[in-house]
């Protein structure tokens, strides 16, 4: 009886441990899972996000193949932006070669296919180290790689979320660093650089979090303090190499985000039952996202009998807790958001990807528990066979689920290209791909961050380059490419040459001085005839690339040294790893560019920072038990011609304020009826916690009078704790007199019947 299961198991184990056969299985599974997607190649995914993200890739291909330039500037999006600095662009990765070779649309499903293979192989290698069994890791690998989240991401055009498939590679690298192996550092640096280059807005920070947790665990597991210090050196070197290797992308992204303040408010929460449903519900049933095929639970159950399972269980629990967001009063997600790198995270349910990952690891460990008894117990042998069967069934379910999810995608034919000179169009971010085919930029912008854009961009110009004063001369475009404009200018007097694209500090001119003309790209020129050559040469992209080359060169040097002369001490390793970062620092200091501070405006376009109260404002002095003062308010006497009531509050923040403190606005009529206009975010831009200190801030908001019954209304304003007990913050007059209920009268208005 025992012969049959053992034969099956050992054959399966041979497949798992033979690289070619293992890859063969992974390739077959990936091909089956991506079969539908491959059949959609060349078509246009019509989902709005796909229009935005895919356009970046197509722009990059066009820039390289049509103009022979590096994809540095993307004039087709949002009036022009730094392509390398756009967090969602994914061309700074090796997958771009596929886009160049096959076209960006046909390359997409190939990228999916390759990432699935990569995910399975990475998981196998990591889980084998973790679980101590090749067959268990082999059986659980498809569960991780065929996570339905990736299929849904494919459908929505969020291809950059495939970066999650690299999570096991980073953790594998870390395990190798625990063993003091240089390959581990290279693996981690490569995986993180690839994730970043592939647009890993979520995979990078989230994976960094779990890598940090596992690193702490690794340090804790060391036997002596000397070993801990040695490993700390290795981990420090790894962190420095990762930073250096990623600088090509990190620097432009940091520059971009410094010019574009993004705030993420709200308190999304999900009950654990919803997270569980998300994990295990089938895409074929009721539209749920299939994260993990349920048969894995059979393998996971066995992990209860292994001590190796403790850390993955803790990690799975923490991931699940994070995935519930603000559901529990004690929210780990809230704590995470308090950290700078994670402050703009939304959708806590994305942590369910990590729950699925760690459950898959536990599945591998669980299999190992049974596997270690196979030789001694016939029952265990049959148990292992049943587990293998469960893995096969689960893989089949996952493939089917993947297929179902990818079938939901709305695919249209690729728009036909129209050859015409580039110009900005008003565009439409919901259908941006069509404008790119027309060689038109879409000013309508659907990016997830506030792209620094000029309000002067127009989609109706006869000429994209013009003089601010048209009577002062003439402009003629002699050549155009994304990164370079050649213009002939005749000017009778000093003029401002304007280009219908956004300004960026990376633009340089052969003549005159590049200026930001209300956010528009401009060149201040002297009188005369000029051949103006405008070129986009951003410091961050070239400087970052240099730092990354140095980092990889340093790593190569360390590898060569280690082979020839033996291992370097961890502290020498750190010193070498720090070299490229020192160069980064020097470049930052010596290679200057004009500053590009964020443009701070309210959602209605009015400036946030004001020097003093405007004449139409009524002074209202109140201070609060947190360091915030209310200085004045604008309250309209009645709704305007459009039936809108536009208010302004003028705040000053003088110190540290908790993140949860928000503004309440109560509109109360003579009958005691109340309309609420609470808002946690000042001017749609800041929390009180992050607002500039000591400056007068205009907080503008508008309501429709359609929902306000006729009558005379008081506007009562104050601060409250949007989290916890929801209590109001105590308010007082400048003389220190307490204001009843913490509600400050900002003004009154009347709504006529």
């Amino acid at each position, binding site marked *: 009886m025992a012969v049959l299961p053992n034969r099956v198991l050992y*054959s399966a184990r*041979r*497949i798992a441990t*033979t*690289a*070619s*056969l*293992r890859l*063969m299985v992974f*390739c077959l599974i*990936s*091909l089956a899972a991506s079969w539908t997607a*491959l059949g959609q*190649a*060349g*078509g246009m995914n019509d989902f709005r996000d796909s229009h935005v993200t895919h356009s970046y890739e197509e722009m990059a291909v066009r820039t390289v193949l049509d103009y022979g330039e590096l994809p540095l500037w993307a004039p087709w999006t949002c009036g022009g932006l730094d392509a390398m600095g756009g967090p969602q662009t994914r061309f700074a990765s090796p997958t771009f070669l596929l886009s160049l070779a*096959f076209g960006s649309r*046909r*390359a997409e499903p*190939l990228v999916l*296919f390759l990432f699935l293979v990569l995910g399975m192989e990475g998981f196998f290698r990591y889980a084998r180290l973790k679980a101590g069994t090749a067959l268990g890791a082999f059986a659980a690998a498809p569960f991780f790689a065929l996570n339905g989240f990736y299929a849904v991401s494919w459908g929505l055009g969020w291809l950059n979320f495939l970066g999650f498939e690299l999570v096991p590679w980073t953790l594998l690298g870390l395990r190798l660093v625990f063993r003091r192996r240089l390959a581990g550092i290279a693996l981690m640096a490569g995986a993180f650089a690839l994730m970043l280059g592939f647009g890993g807005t979520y995979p990078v920070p989230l994976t960094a979090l779990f890598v940090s947790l596992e690193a702490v665990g690794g340090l804790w597991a060391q036997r002596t303090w000397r070993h801990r210090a040695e490993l700390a050196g290795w981990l420090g070197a790894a962190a420095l190499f990762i930073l250096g290797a990623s600088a090509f992308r990190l620097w432009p992204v940091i520059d971009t985000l410094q010019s574009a303040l993004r705030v993420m408010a*709200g308190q*999304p929460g999900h009950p654990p039952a919803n997270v569980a449903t998300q994990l295990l519900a089938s895409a074929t049933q009721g539209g749920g996202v299939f994260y993990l095929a349920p048969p894995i639970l059979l393998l996971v159950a066995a992990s209860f009998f292994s001590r190796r399972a403790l850390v993955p269980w803790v990690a799975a629990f923490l991931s699940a807790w994070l995935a519930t967001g603000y559901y529990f009063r004690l929210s780990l997600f809230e704590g995470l958001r308090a950290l700078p790198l994670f402050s703009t995270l*939304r959708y806590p349910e994305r942590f369910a990807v990590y729950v699925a990952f760690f459950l898959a690891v536990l599945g591998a460990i669980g299999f190992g528990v049974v596997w270690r008894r196979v030789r001694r117990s016939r029952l265990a042998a049959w148990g292992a066979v049943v587990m293998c069967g469960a893995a096969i069934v689960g893989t089949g379910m996952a493939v089917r689920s993947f297929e179902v999810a990818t079938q939901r995608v709305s695919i*249209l*034919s*690729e728009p036909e290209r129209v050859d015409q000179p580039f*110009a900005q*169009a*008003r565009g*439409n*971010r*919901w*259908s941006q791909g*069509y404008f790119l085919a*027309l060689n*038109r930029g879409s*000013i*309508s*912008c*659907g*990016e997830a*961050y506030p792209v620094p*854009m000029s309000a002067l*961009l127009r*989609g*109706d110009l*006869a000429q994209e380059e013009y003089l601010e004063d048209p009577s002062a001369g003439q402009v003629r475009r002699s050549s155009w490419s994304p990164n370079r404009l050649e213009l002939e200018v005749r000017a009778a007097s000093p003029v401002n040459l304007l280009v219908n694209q956004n300004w960026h500090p990376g633009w340089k001119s052969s003549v005159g001085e590049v200026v930001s003309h209300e956010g528009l790209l401009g060149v201040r020129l002297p009188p005369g005839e000029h051949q103006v050559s405008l070129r986009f040469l951003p410091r961050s992209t070239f400087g970052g690339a240099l730092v990354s080359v140095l980092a990889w060169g340093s790593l190569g040097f360390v590898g060569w040294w280690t082979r020839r002369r033996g291992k370097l001490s961890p502290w020498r390793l750190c010193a070498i790893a720090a070299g490229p970062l020192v160069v980064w620092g020097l470049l930052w200091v010596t290679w200057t560019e004009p500053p590009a501070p964020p443009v701070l*405006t309210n*959602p*209605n376009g009015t400036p946030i920072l004001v020097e003093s109260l405007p004449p139409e404002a009524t002074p209202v002095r109140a201070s609060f038990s947190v360091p915030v003062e209310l200085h004045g308010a604008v309250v309209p006497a009645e709704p305007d011609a*459009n*039936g*809108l009531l*536009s208010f302004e509050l003028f705040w000053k923040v003088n110190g540290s304020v908790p993140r949860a403190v928000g503004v309440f606005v109560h509109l109360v009529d003579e009958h005691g009826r109340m309309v609420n206009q609470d808002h946690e*975010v000042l001017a*749609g831009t800041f929390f009180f916690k992050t607002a500039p200190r000591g400056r007068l801030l205009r907080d*503008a908001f*508008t309501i*429709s009078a359609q929902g306000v019954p006729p009558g005379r209304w008081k506007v009562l304003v104050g601060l409250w704790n949007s989290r916890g007990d929801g209590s109001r913050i105590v308010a007082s007059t400048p003389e220190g007199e307490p204001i009843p209920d913490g509600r400050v009268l900002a003004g009154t208005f009347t709504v006529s019947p």
Partner: protein
Amino acid sequence: MIRSKWLRLTGWGVSGLCTALAIGRALSAQVPPPTRRLSEAERAAVGRMCAAEEPRWRQSPVHRFPGDRWSQDDDFHASERGWAMEMARRAGVSPGEIFRAIDEDLHTHPVKPPRKPTASPSKPRPFYD
């Protein structure tokens, strides 16, 4: 047997075959485009029709997103897209033809308020839950 060189080679071979199949399927997949195109005159007419609709699309988000310029414009663009897709379906042409018509109209006719040749600078809303 499983250790044999031939089996290993088979493994590599099948892996390569899978990759080749993936590439072949991606390169041969077809999503045929609509054969009909709009003539210049039709494009001009479509552009005018869209221009006539614009004031209505601009008005409706004023109360849905009061005081939020980017959201108002975004809502307008959603309406415009819906109209363009429907128009393309009815005319049996690619939506690209309709967007081309809209763009050409903007470049050839003066745009007066409440129509706009611009789009408000990006300012995503801070709430997604």
